[in-house]
């Protein structure tokens, strides 16, 4: 008997018990649908995390001076060793380094005509924009020449520009940092709040050398941000920087805490991993409902086999082989789960988009998730249909015919 004939027999048998078939299919519809919806939520969350990591700059290594401990009192960063510009230059000569941004900061009062604003001044180099992945809203950033000459220029954060200038154009104007007049070269684009809630746009950037000499009066750095050429290179570079700094500052073996190195790759990997776990967790919870749907199919098929025992006996008397009976009943189960899969995909996509609209969660339906859910739904039909179909096929013709 051909596959096509088998399909017609199975379809006809299902049509005879339409309500039952639809209800059984519903189990698979819900199962496949919820797998797709849950995976969509997980994937959405993962993509949002990836986006945030991308903005954070996951290839960055942050080097900070450590804190000294004297008589149990722990002083702040920079008290153990002092990082200097020459450390930054030495780091920039290591392999796999694509940018190095040393920074010294100071809280300052900023004045322009009648208004003033307290903000945070960061003395930086042009590489700062690279490692922070920041752009300018208007004007220009200062150059290496400005840094080399400790030029009295600055770039305003978006918030600072708004607070001091309102609607007027700050480019070319002169602001007073503490007592030092500086010309505004540019305004940074708006970055918004950081992940821990600080307004990143409340900032003022000036050439590092200028801040060190004319404002802080100290040649030290608060930190050095090092960007690696790839995320994979980060681990090695982390070690290289530790070694370099130990040598440069003559730190003895075994002494710890002289400087600290934060490596965001590990954070990135951990959060990506947890997002993955999250996706699979949601998916497998949903898969349980798919399993329940499969048990529904098995239940219905077992009832159907029992009810149709005489029919099976008649078919065997007329020449049906075991495999004909097996194919007929297995195909019924597969048709049920296949139909459930198709409607489940539709339900999953629709419910994912409804979720996205009403809950505001980031939701992404991927073709992979749809494929996995559909194939899994079909396999559930095969798996749970096999037992009833075999039971039907293994009936002895004489027993099946005699069955009342």
């Amino acid at each position: 008997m051909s596959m096509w004939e088998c399909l017609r027999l199975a379809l006809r048998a299902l049509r005879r018990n339409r309500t039952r078939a639809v209800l059984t299919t519903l189990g698979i519809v819900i199962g496949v649908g919820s797998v797709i919806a849950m995976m969509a939520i997980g994937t959405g969350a993962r993509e949002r995390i990836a986006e945030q990591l991308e903005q954070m700059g996951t290839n960055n290594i942050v080097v900070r001076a450590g804190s000294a401990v004297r008589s149990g009192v722990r002083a702040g960063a920079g008290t153990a060793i002092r990082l200097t510009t020459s450390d930054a230059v030495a780091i920039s000569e290591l392999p796999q380094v694509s940018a190095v941004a040393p920074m010294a900061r100071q809280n300052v009062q900023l004045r322009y005509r009648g208004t003033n604003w307290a903000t945070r001044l960061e003395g930086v180099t042009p590489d700062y924009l690279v490692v922070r992945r920041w752009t300018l809203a208007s004007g220009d950033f200062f150059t290496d020449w400005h840094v080399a000459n400790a030029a009295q220029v600055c770039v305003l954060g978006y918030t600072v520009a708004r607070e001091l200038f309102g609607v007027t154009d700050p480019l070319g104007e002169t602001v007073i940092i503490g007592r030092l007049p500086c010309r505004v070269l540019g305004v940074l684009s708006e970055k918004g709040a950081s992940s821990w809630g600080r307004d990143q746009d409340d900032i003022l950037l000036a050439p590092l050398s200028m801040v060190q000499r004319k404002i802080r009066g100290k040649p030290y750095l608060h930190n050095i941000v090092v960007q690696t050429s790839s995320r994979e290179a980060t681990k090695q570079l982390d070690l290289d920087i530790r070694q370099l700094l130990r040598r440069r500052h003559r730190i003895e073996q075994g002494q710890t805490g002289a400087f600290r190195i934060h490596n965001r790759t590990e954070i990135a990997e951990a959060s990506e991993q947890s997002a993955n776990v999250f996706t699979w967790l949601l998916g497998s919870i949903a898969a349980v409902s798919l399993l329940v749907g499969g048990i529904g199919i098995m239940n219905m098929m077992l009832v159907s086999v029992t009810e149709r025992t005489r029919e099976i006996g008649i078919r065997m008397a007329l020449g049906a082989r075991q495999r004909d009976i097996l194919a007929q009943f297995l195909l019924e189960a597969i048709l049920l789960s296949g139909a459930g899969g198709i409607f489940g995909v539709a339900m999953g996509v629709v419910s994912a988009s409804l979720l996205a609209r009403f809950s505001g969660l980031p939701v992404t339906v991927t073709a992979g998730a749809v494929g996995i859910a559909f194939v899994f739904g079909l396999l559930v039909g095969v798996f749970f249909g096999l037992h009833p179909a075999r039971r039907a096929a293994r009936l002895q013709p004489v027993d099946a015919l005699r069955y009342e």
Partner: protein
Amino acid sequence: MSAVIHMQDIRKAYARGDLHVEALRGVSLEVQPGEFVAITGPSGSGKSTLMNILGCLDRPDAGIYQLNGEDITRLGSDALAQARNRTFGFVFQNFGLLPRTSALENVETPLLYAGVARQERRRRAGDLLQKLGLGDRIGHLSNQLSGGQQQRVAIARALVNNPTVLLADEPTGNLDSATGAEIVNLLEQLNRDEGLTIVLITHEAEVAARARRGMMLHDGRLESQT
């Protein structure tokens, strides 16, 4: 002329609860092509067991069963299914039609399992129903037909794959006497005009009397009658 059915010393026992029932205790039977054989016997004499073994629906415990000269006691289940499909046509007491299935599709079913293409199946089944006077009942579902019509559909289904032997197990058992007589007439006519070999199992003496040869099953053994 070689025998279609050759049975020798066939035995079959089964357990019914705690009871060990010896249904057949050495049955020997030979059926030649074109014969019309009736097997009678009181209820519990093993008629149904013999019918099931004859029709390859069940296997004997011991003995020789040759179908068209071929020993079938050692055949696998697929080969037995094929023997049922090609060699036998079954007519049951309770008609044995597929429920909620049209007369045409019922008659088509043996051809479906024989691998005959759909159009050919339709044609052969339709022709046969026409010939048995059911031309206007082709599309009716089995439960929309009267008992006599159902048994005619069953006979059409038994004949559709040109079987060597028609096996009829109490074909008139569920019919009133007038309709039952029609069915027996039909069988007689098929045997006489088309040379169809028929083995008929019945407990009704007047039905058995219409066959050319009668045999009596008694306590699991077959005795000849003439």
